[in-house]
């Protein structure tokens, strides 16, 4: 059933295939695309960290980083260099293998999710027909890394953080999945390019009006919880657990957790944009004649959603662990199921808004 294709920039594809024999061209293309995506990943991560710090500063009557580079723009690069040069410490009697494995689990799942995102019409590495399912599946693999980190650290604070993470991710997975299933009912496909295609006659949040709006709100709450960000940052819970599951990590291993958090935030925002706000489509098709602008539309919308998540973080206090579960199982899940039925009825009776 899997149909995969490397759609990344057709001209590059054609160029490579005209130059090299097909097998070699395919290999070269894979390596090239891999390098490009790794670069995007690193740059996006660093940029998001800087953005977060600047946004937080604006919320908190501060200036934020403003010394390194123009207006502090090189600050996160400097931080990354600092982290690279730091000693990698560990604890005695820790499970060394799992301890070292954990950061890679977290970072690799975050990186894999990037592959299916449709940045523009022609810029998508891996357009599988179960794209959305793939994204949800990946987001649950990341939690294994966090559990391993907590277990391998030989630290009770890290362990409590990791157990909280397990509970939280398993619970909120349901809401993320169900709110996306609600939208899949409307879009009629799991393939991301298809979902975008459907939205040429209006973004899904407009097409689906009330149930779509409810689904979006649930998705944003559950998505924030999935990425372990405030107000759902019980996993780290600075004032309760020190640094939670990554208490014992230093240097680049810590940086992996840190970067993964921001990339995950980007991915959740990107999913929201793909499913609700038309991905790379411009509003009312104003730049339809210039398809290369799609990347900018996609990134622009994504960063707006990211800003929304940052706004959450710098405004709300943290929930308690039992309140977190109450919210999911007693409120979000029933609401989600009712919303699913509402969406089914809406689609069945053809009450959607089409342009």
């Amino acid at each position, binding site marked *: 059933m899997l149909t995969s294709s490397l759609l990344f920039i057709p001209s590059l594809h054609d160029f490579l295939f005209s130059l090299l024999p097909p097998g070699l061209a395919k290999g070269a293309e894979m390596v090239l695309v891999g390098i490009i995506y790794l670069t995007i990943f690193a740059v996006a991560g660093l940029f998001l960290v800087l953005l977060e710090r600047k946004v*937080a500063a604006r919320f908190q009557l501060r200036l934020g980083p403003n010394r390194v580079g123009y207006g502090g723009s090189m600050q996160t690069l400097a931080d990354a260099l600092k982290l690279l040069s730091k000693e990698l410490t560990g604890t005695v009697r820790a499970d060394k293998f799992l301890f070292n494995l954990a950061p890679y689990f977290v970072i690799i799942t975050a990186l894999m999710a990037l592959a299916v995102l449709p940045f523009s019409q022609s810029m998508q590495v891996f357009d599988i027909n179960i794209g959305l399912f793939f994204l949800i599946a990946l987001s649950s693999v990341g939690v294994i890394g966090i559990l391993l980190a907590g277990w391998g650290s030989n630290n009770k604070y890290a362990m409590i953080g990791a157990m909280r993470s397990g509970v939280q991710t398993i619970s909120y997975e349901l809401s993320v999945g169900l709110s996306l299933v609600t939208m899949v009912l409307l879009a009629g496909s799991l393939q991301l390019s298809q979902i975008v295609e459907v939205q040429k006659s209006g973004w899904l949040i407009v097409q689906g009006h009330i149930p779509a709006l409810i689904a979006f709100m649930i998705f944003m709450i559950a998505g924030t919880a999935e990425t372990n960000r405030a107000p759902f940052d019980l996993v780290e819970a600075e004032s309760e657990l020190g640094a939670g599951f990554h208490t014992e990590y230093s240097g680049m291993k810590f940086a992996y957790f840190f970067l993964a958090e921001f990339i995950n935030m980007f991915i959740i925002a990107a999913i929201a944009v793909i499913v609700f706000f038309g991905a790379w489509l411009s509003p009312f098709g104003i730049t339809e004649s210039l398809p290369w602008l799609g990347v900018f539309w996609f990134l622009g919308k994504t960063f707006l959603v990211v800003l929304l998540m940052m706004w959450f973080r710098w405004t709300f*206090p*943290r929930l*308690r662990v039992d309140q977190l579960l109450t919210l999911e199982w007693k409120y979000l899940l029933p609401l989600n199921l009712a919303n699913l039925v509402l969406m089914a009825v809406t689609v069945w009776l053809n009450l959607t808004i089409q342009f």
Partner: protein
Amino acid sequence: METATIAPPIKSEEYFINMGPQHPATHGVLRLLLTLDGEIIKKVEPDLGYIHRSIEKMCERNSYQQIIHLTDRLDYLSSHINNEAVCLAVEAALGVEVPERVKVVRTILDELIRISSHCLWWGVMGMDLGALTSYFYAFRDREMINDIFEETCGARLTMNYNVPGGLMHDIHPNFVARTREFLAHFKTKLPEYDRLLTDNVIFQKRTKGVGVLSRQDAIAFGASGPVGRASGYSCDVRVHHPYSALPKVTFKEALRTEGDSFARYQVRIQEMWESVAIIEQLIDAIPEGPHQVATDAVIKLPKGEFYQKVETARGELGVFIISTGTKNPYRLKFRSPGFSNLSLLNHIAVGGKIGDLVATMATLDLVIPDIDR
């Protein structure tokens, strides 16, 4: 016949965890020995002594003027009030009547430092509950108070402005104008505090019904200050035993009956409003006159026992001096509010979650050097 074996029930075990002395939520070097069952707290045992500096012993070999400088280091967020407690005790023992100007300025500074202390508490309270932004809002306003202190006393935290017999210097010419400016500013910012934290639904869920202390227990544990008043125990020294210029002003004692963390929070917010009201009544009419009455260079207290209590931002601070007629006290004992307030932590935190413990500790508003001395 084979019998079916029943799997034993999953065994859970209580475990022990060290919270502190280096922990973000203990605000200093307090060490809590927690016994936990999963997330649920079974026992909290405070372990003190990490910042013990023998202040009471040091007092015994210092002159009364020098003792005042040590009191800054008790509850450093109410340093001026601590200074005043010793000064009042010494003045009462000597039978010195300080000028009206001194009394008014002392009370104004008392209330300013109370606002400053509560501001810091409010910011840190938000931080403990995971809302970092409140910290910066509070520090913006606290900064203005610190600037007033800096101009008036030369110090921002450890003030040492009081001396037996009055004030070290007269107030700065800008003092009145800047205090008025601060009051006008702060009255527009206090409602902002409510909008950011008090009205937040997550905040209310985290604090309501958490760490409930009954009135009876509050009295039994010797709770004072906002902790006692949130449980309906009217214990404000400023109301019951007014000192300095307090008899001249009218204000309402902040009282709640719920006794939970949210009540303690509300009491402090209301106290900030009351402090603003007290300063407003005094700032426009600071009497003219000397800022000090002359005392001997070497103060010798008459033989006897002297006690003075004041209301710091955390509660009742008592100073008990036993004098044998020499230039040093024979024994000096501080009754610090933080110590009694900490003693009830185990009583109210057991049964809650780790998050509840953090919220409860935040509303007890502990300052560790005040507990350890």
